[in-house]
């Protein structure tokens, strides 16, 4: 029974990691951009929601809705002004620029909000639980997982059913040919990063309500997110969800055996998958 419980908790945790990873997967899939500041951007989103909540006292979900357009604007501008200049064959420029950004963000948040850990209050929801077959699960983890599935569903609809989604796919496949067809890659990329930042805001909501956070926790979240994206395969959002679940289940199983093995087990699962499938489980196209 305890194993079923562990498995269910692992899958739900995987939902959180998939949320962390969905924005990254979008950006990585469309422009091959390795954004090392992604984790810190999630933390930035969490602080933004916290500020809105403490200023107006509104429900965190509505606060996230307020924060989302702001994050979209930040992402759009960041891509248009800075990151577009780094794209190309060489992976070093985006790596270094986003790493610099990560340091700037961490220390700016440290300067603005101090190193004290914070939490976005969610009232009774924080501890509520429901019976689910033989096990009992928290409402918040269940919501997290549901949101992750819904987010990926919506992103996939945007990707395959809308004009902007077609533009995303076209630029991802061949930016030069796409620009011959009247698409402006620089704008498409900016919109993609803006959209990714909306997803980041959703991830930030759950990061901030589920546990304490402080300005320094971004990079650890980043590494789980990357693992989920790579396990899933480039450009496959459902793959990212599967990747998140694999990391989540491996971590809870590891922790059930020995609490010190939680993180290690997640990393080992990642290495094993890559050893068998170097391009991930469901790679969409050629890298």
């Amino acid at each position, binding site marked *: 029974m305890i194993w079923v419980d562990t498995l269910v908790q692992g899958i739900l945790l995987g939902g959180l990691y998939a949320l962390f990873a969905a924005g990254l997967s979008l950006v990585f899939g469309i422009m091959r951009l390795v954004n090392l500041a992604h984790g810190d951007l999630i933390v930035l989103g969490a602080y933004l929601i916290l500020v809105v909540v403490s200023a107006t006292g509104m429900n965190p979900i509505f606060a996230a809705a307020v924060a989302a357009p702001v994050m979209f604007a930040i992402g759009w501008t960041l891509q248009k002004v800075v990151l577009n200049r780094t794209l190309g064959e060489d992976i070093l420029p985006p790596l*270094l620029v986003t790493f610099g950004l990560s340091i700037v963000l961490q220390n700016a948040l440290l*300067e603005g909000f101090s190193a004290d850990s914070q939490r976005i209050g969610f009232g009774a929801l924080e501890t509520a639980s429901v019976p689910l077959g033989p096990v009992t699960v928290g409402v918040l983890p269940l919501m997290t997982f549901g949101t992750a599935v819904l987010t990926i569903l919506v992103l996939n609809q945007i990707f395959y059913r809308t004009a902007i989604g077609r533009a995303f796919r076209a630029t991802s496949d061949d930016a030069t040919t796409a620009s011959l067809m009247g698409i402006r890659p620089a704008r498409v990329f900016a919109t993609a990063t803006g959209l990714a930042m909306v997803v980041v805001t959703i991830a930030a909501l759950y990061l901030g309500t589920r546990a304490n956070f402080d300005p320094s926790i971004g990079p650890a979240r980043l590494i789980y997110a990357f693992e989920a994206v790579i396990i899933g395969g480039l450009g496959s959002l459902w793959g990212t969800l599967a990747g998140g679940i694999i990391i989540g289940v491996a971590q809870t199983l590891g922790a059930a055996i020995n609490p010190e093995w939680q993180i290690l087990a997640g990393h080992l699962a990642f*290495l094993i998958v890559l050893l068998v499938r170097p391009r991930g489980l469901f790679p969409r196209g050629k890298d």
Partner: protein
Amino acid sequence: MTPYAVSTRTPASSVALTLGIALVVVLYVAPLFASRGLIQDLFFILTMLTLAQFWNLLAGYGGLVSVGQQAFVGIGAYALFGGVILGAMDPVAAILLSGVAALVLAIPTAFFAFRLQGAYFAIGTWVIAEVARLSIAQWKALGGGTGTSLPREAMREMMLTDWIGTVFDVRASAARDILAYWLALTLAVATIAGIYWLLRTKRGLALAAVRDNMEAAKSVGVDASRMKWVVFLTSAFGTGVAGGVIYLQKARISPDAAFSVTDWTAYVIFIVVIGGIGTIEGPILGVLAFFLLQSLLSDYGSWYLMILGLIGIVVMLFAPRGLWGLISDRTGLQLFPIRRRLTGGKIED
């Protein structure tokens, strides 16, 4: 008619060589006149320079952008501590163990990481370093997650410290700093000389060819995957030895510090990029710029790091070839020339 000759030497490089040798001699005798603080600063500069040269060899010449070099610093440092604490070795002799341990870790790492390309390679190496950190934290004999110190007796009886203490008339702790400084200096000089030598050999030519265009290099018979192995293992060995020397001086270790991605990879990447990637001069200039920034701004705490991050972004966007790139573009100066030039000979009518 003068015969044709292929040479790499330029007048500037001859001057640089002479000045370089003089500088190294001065640095070796520096403990005679330098304060202990200065020796410690120089130690920091020299060890960071070594790490930067090896990362530059990996990324700048080998095209292998690793974010996991802290794995080799950490495993090297822990091998040294293991040799001293569990094997009762002399700390200086145990440095060799650092290099060997890094090499042993590098072989499976390479088998795994070479299956990955570009960004996947970068993330893969980072995860491997995390696995190494978390695994070492399970090793209770070496302090587990909280870490441990080098035993006092081992530090007291370390080779050469008595001799240094008598010759320079300093206390044991200062003598250990001088010893560590000499080791770091020797390592840095050997690293630069070794990499320069490697780049001027046929292998170096192959390496530059692979860096510039892998397909073209393969088509003229260069074994690109073998070059990757050579570069990766060399860098791992050197980085491991540097890790051993760094923690010999610190004498206190913990997994979080020894496997720190910020200290041993991020700062190192910063140094290489600021100075100029793909050149030997770049990391030298970069480490000096980094040290200068640190001494000027470190009192400002988080502002210092913000400025460091911004400088990294600005340099990458507007001067991607770094400080040395700016200098050599304007002056054509090359202190460590590797380009082969044809001299002599004349077209007869």
